[in-house]
């Protein structure tokens, strides 16, 4: 498996690489939403706003628009600090409606299983009615992935149980902009995931060895390492390292 520890060859934690990769995808003036249990996108959105997309509109479950709070909850991405010091209130119900009518540019979502056809499973392992494992549920995925202009999926695990030949259950399908993992970024085109780029911490062989469906690409770009400026901002945004917690589970 891939390492999440710091070494001379792998100077950056995958969380930081993922956060920077995500932040660089975000464009100025975009309206961007993250949901629950989403500390990585939360940090990435704040990083993007500070560096790349100053006029981006950041939305979240508590409903604070562009909260400028410096406090970051250590346990929640739906806490009051995302409401405090915000510019306006735009609660979750309205965010969903916005996506439904085609006005949400970016939504961050996750899942537990993904297959090459772009199926996403956040519901169950095993059968739906008698599941082997009942997962937390897709939260907004089933309605946001089909409707957001760009649905960006992040997942902090990259192994053959996550990236599978066929998902056990289709919580939702298609319209995936990117899937960002500790090893790589997948894109989605012609109804199929493709390898878009890989982490500087890995090799294409390692990505293939940890992916349950066939990757056809032989050479892809390497994701740019976090810059000093990005890293210093990430540390200011998340001084307590909440972004690493998802990796320890």
């Amino acid at each position, binding site marked *: 498996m891939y390492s999440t520890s710091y070494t001379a060859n792998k100077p950056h934690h995958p969380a930081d690489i993922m956060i920077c990769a995500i932040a660089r995808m975000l464009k100025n003036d975009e309206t961007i939403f993250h949901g*629950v*249990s989403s*500390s990585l996108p939360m940090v990435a959105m704040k990083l993007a706003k500070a560096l790349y997309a100053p006029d981006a509109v950041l939305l979240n*479950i*508590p*409903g*604070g628009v562009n909260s400028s709070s410096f406090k970051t909850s*250590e*346990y*929640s*991405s*739906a*806490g*009051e600090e*995302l*409401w*405090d010091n915000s510019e306006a209130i735009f*609660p*979750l*119900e309205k965010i*969903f409606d916005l*996506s*439904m*009518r085609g006005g949400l540019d970016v939504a961050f979502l996750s899942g537990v299983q993904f297959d090459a056809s772009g199926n996403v499973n956040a*519901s169950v392992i095993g059968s*739906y*009615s*008698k*599941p*082997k*494992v*009942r997962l*937390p*549920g*897709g*939260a*907004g*995925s*089933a*309605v*946001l992935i*089909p*409707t957001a202009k760009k649905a960006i999926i992040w997942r902090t695990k990259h192994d053959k149980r996550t990236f599978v030949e066929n998902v056990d*259950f*289709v*919580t*939702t*399908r*298609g319209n995936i902009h990117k899937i960002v993992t500790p090893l790589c970024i997948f894109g989605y085109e012609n109804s199929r995931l493709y390898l878009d780029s890989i982490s500087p911490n890995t090799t294409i062989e390692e990505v293939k060895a940890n992916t349950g469906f066939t990757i056809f690409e032989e050479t892809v770009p390497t994701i740019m390492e976090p810059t000093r400026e990005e890293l210093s901002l990430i540390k200011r945004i998340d001084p307590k390292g909440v972004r690493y*917690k*998802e990796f320890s*589970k």
Partner: protein
Amino acid sequence: MTANKIKTLKEAVNLIEDKMTIAIGGNVLHRAPMAFVREIVRSKKRDLRIVKTAGAHDVDLLCGSDCVSIVDAGFISYETEFGLANHYRKAVETGKIKANEHACYTVMCALRAAKAGLNFMPVKGLVHSDLIAENDYFRKITDPFSGESVTVVKSINPDVAVIHVHECDKEGNAVIYGPKFDDELISLSAKRVILTTEKLVNKSKFSKQMQNIAIPGFLVDSIVVIPKGASPCSCPGLYDIDEKILKDFTSNCSKEHIEKYLAYYEAKDSVKGAFYSV
């Protein structure tokens, strides 16, 4: 005068009957009406149907205490820090509880239907999902204007909405500081609204600030004054989560462990709030 709405926790929980559909306020670890939820457990209510877009400790505790037969939700989990809701998971995996998985928004749409007296609500975004075929509360129908197919969700009509608020007056005019989550929506879709409140305040406090009232009193059936009524969940502006309790609760799935947890809160949940003379 209107009937006195102010009740003890026990009196208010007595309004809950087995098999009722209960909508719970707050979101994940924030502003869940935990004292009320614990009293439901102590009163051994059974076969409840629980409705919440995103639940955590509340739903987990009720599931671990055999109070629940159906959960309608988009997401049930502690956030990353405390891991999965294991009582809920186990109950679903063993078939004791039916998980009606929604997409958060489809819970909202089902409640919007109830709010507007409708049996169903169309949902734009739910297009490609096994959830549609697997669940009898989703259907595809034909839009009569365009001829296109659209998914609709069946209404969810809560018998009771339980909402924890920062303060209210004796008529139930209630103020929530910070995020309101879906509390307004559930208050408008439930047959009865029960408030648990940190504080009872004089009506005059809201004079000229009526636009801050999240729930108008005429929708409110009962009020329980219970300071720290959301603990160990957070109540924005007043207290954060009780991390120690939550870590301890999620560390062990035995019935005895739940008993211990309930015992810890026994005295706290029966503390009388600062009533003002009515």
